[in-house]
């Protein structure tokens, strides 16, 4: 057939890199088509954090007094932004296991494309999904009275830290999705997400928890990002105790970096062991 292009192996490294990006985008585009064809699923994913905000705002809004005045939403929203990033873990894992179970991953692997493109495509699609979800949650927060008090640069830095957390969690999702044999295993992660978000400073002050639980909550990566986002948005928080509480922005970079360093190689290895 005349449309066949030159075999990829003969191209220059630059051209190959270009094709790897184009392939990643083609694979990511598949997810955007999914959004259009099954809008219900993706909208529910985006609206779920909004629901949680309304629920917790309604339940605890009156009961919890936030230091430095301000409403509960002022305190809750940055934490909920971080939690929404955590919920993204399920999206990633579900997509990865479904593709593996349906044989779509194998089909991609049988094509003459760089195998990194398969993973990178997942990355791009899920980051886009989270950007949209985060935007919706920000708008919902603004409607409920949440405001950022700092400058625009700080606000953008906070968004950056939130997406960094999402990026780190992506690799946990890909890794768990690879080692889970069936899409049903995602249910386990769906359950585990809850204790992780409750054992943090997202909803309540960790210093009000029993000693060791409080420490765990303070060291939770989610708490670091939530606290850093509060600082950067200029929203009230509990300042936190000890070193960890004082260095939230630093930890909001260190934690995700650490997760990437651990789970990116693990994901790559899991992808390679598909061939064993």
């Amino acid at each position, binding site marked *: 057939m005349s449309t066949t292009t030159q075999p*990829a192996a003969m191209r220059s490294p630059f051209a190959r890199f270009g094709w790897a990006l184009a*392939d990643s985008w083609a694979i990511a585009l598949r997810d955007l088509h999914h959004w259009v064809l099954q809008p219900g699923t993706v909208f529910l994913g985006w609206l779920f954090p909004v629901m949680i905000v309304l629920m917790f705002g309604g339940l605890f809004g009156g009961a919890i007094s936030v230091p430095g005045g301000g409403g509960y939403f002022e305190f809750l929203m940055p934490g909920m932004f971080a939690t929404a990033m955590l919920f993204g873990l399920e999206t990633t894992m579900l997509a990865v296991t479904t593709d593996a179970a*349906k044989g*779509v991953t194998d*089909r*991609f692997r049988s094509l003459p494309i760089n195998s990194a493109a398969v993973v990178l495509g997942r990355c791009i699609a899920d980051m886009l999904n989270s950007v949209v979800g985060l935007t919706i949650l920000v708008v919902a927060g603004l409607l409920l009275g949440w405001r950022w008090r700092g400058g625009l640069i700080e606000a953008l830095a906070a968004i950056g830290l939130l997406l960094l957390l999402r990026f780190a969690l992506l690799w946990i999702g890909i890794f768990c999705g690879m080692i889970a044999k069936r899409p049903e295993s995602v249910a386990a992660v769906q359950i585990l997400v809850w204790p992780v978000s409750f054992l943090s400073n997202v909803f309540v002050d960790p210093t009000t928890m029993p000693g060791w639980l409080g420490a765990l909550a303070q060291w939770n990566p989610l708490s670091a990002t939530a606290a850093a986002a509060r600082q950067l948005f200029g929203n009230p928080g509990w300042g936190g105790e000890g070193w960890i509480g004082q260095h939230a922005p630093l930890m909001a970079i260190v934690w995700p970096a650490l997760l990437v360093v651990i789970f990116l190689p693990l994901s790559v290895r899991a992808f390679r062991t598909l*061939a064993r």
Partner: protein
Amino acid sequence: MKATEFAIVAQGVRKHYARGTADAGLNGFDLEVRSGSVCGLLGPNGAGKTTAIRILSTLLALDAGQAHVAGYDVATQGRRVRERIGLVGQYAAVDEILTGRQNLVLFGRLHHLAAASARKRADELLERFALNEAGRRPVSTYSGGMRRRLDLAATLIVPPAVLFVDEPTTGLDPAARQEVWSALRELVGAGTTVLLTTQYLEEADQLADHIAMLKAGRVIAEGTPDALKAAMGGNWLDIVLSNRTDAETTKGIAARVASGELHIDNSAHRVSVPVAAHTSALIEVASALHEAGIAPVDITLRRPTLDEVFLHLTADSPTPAEVFV
């Protein structure tokens, strides 16, 4: 190994699954498939058919031995192999949420066709596989046969030099099976080398020039369909009687034309006899039964089942019989 007489060559390939039983996987798998021919890999569940296909299509690494596809080593030149192959897995591997057309365009883009040519190629293939109307619907609404055809179409976006097809028609109804067969035949006409696996002798017979029988990860018999069938005692003649009293006489008559051991099924009043000379055996048995005053309920000439072939190949000698014709 360039300018290849053989599109697929496997020599002593071994694959052991860490979590499998001792004889799972491949145990010294040898195969040669001539360029432009169709080879049927025939074997029961667990024989290692999928393992062989996954190794040859570079999805799975082999433990020992060597395999070349289109002249390239599957272990060290995977990328070059992947540029020349198409793989249709045992289960349709298409995106269920996307429409048929979107699937084809996606795979076209991944074969580095320009957007416009990917769309054009998708439409051509939908037309060719009689999917043009279904092309705009999500794949989740397709029947099994339609999915299989889409799966095949996705593999042909850029026609591969070597095509691997794992159990193309398992679970399909007869009409869908015919559709897939004719699609495969068309391909073969285009000069593609095809390695297809199947559990049905009938299917291998319909499509393949050459059959390799796989058992416990090894090829135990090989040859053209006719040669293999002849070596296995050709077809079977089934004689169904109305009662048991005629059985002894019938056995005596059947033994005269038998090319192997008779099988007697007492409860069904059936005498099965392997025959080499098909039609003459049928005539001889029918007239002898008539002369003996026996009126059978049914006499049929049929292909041996895979079970019978395997029994035949493994029963004759203490070590598995190897037939290479």
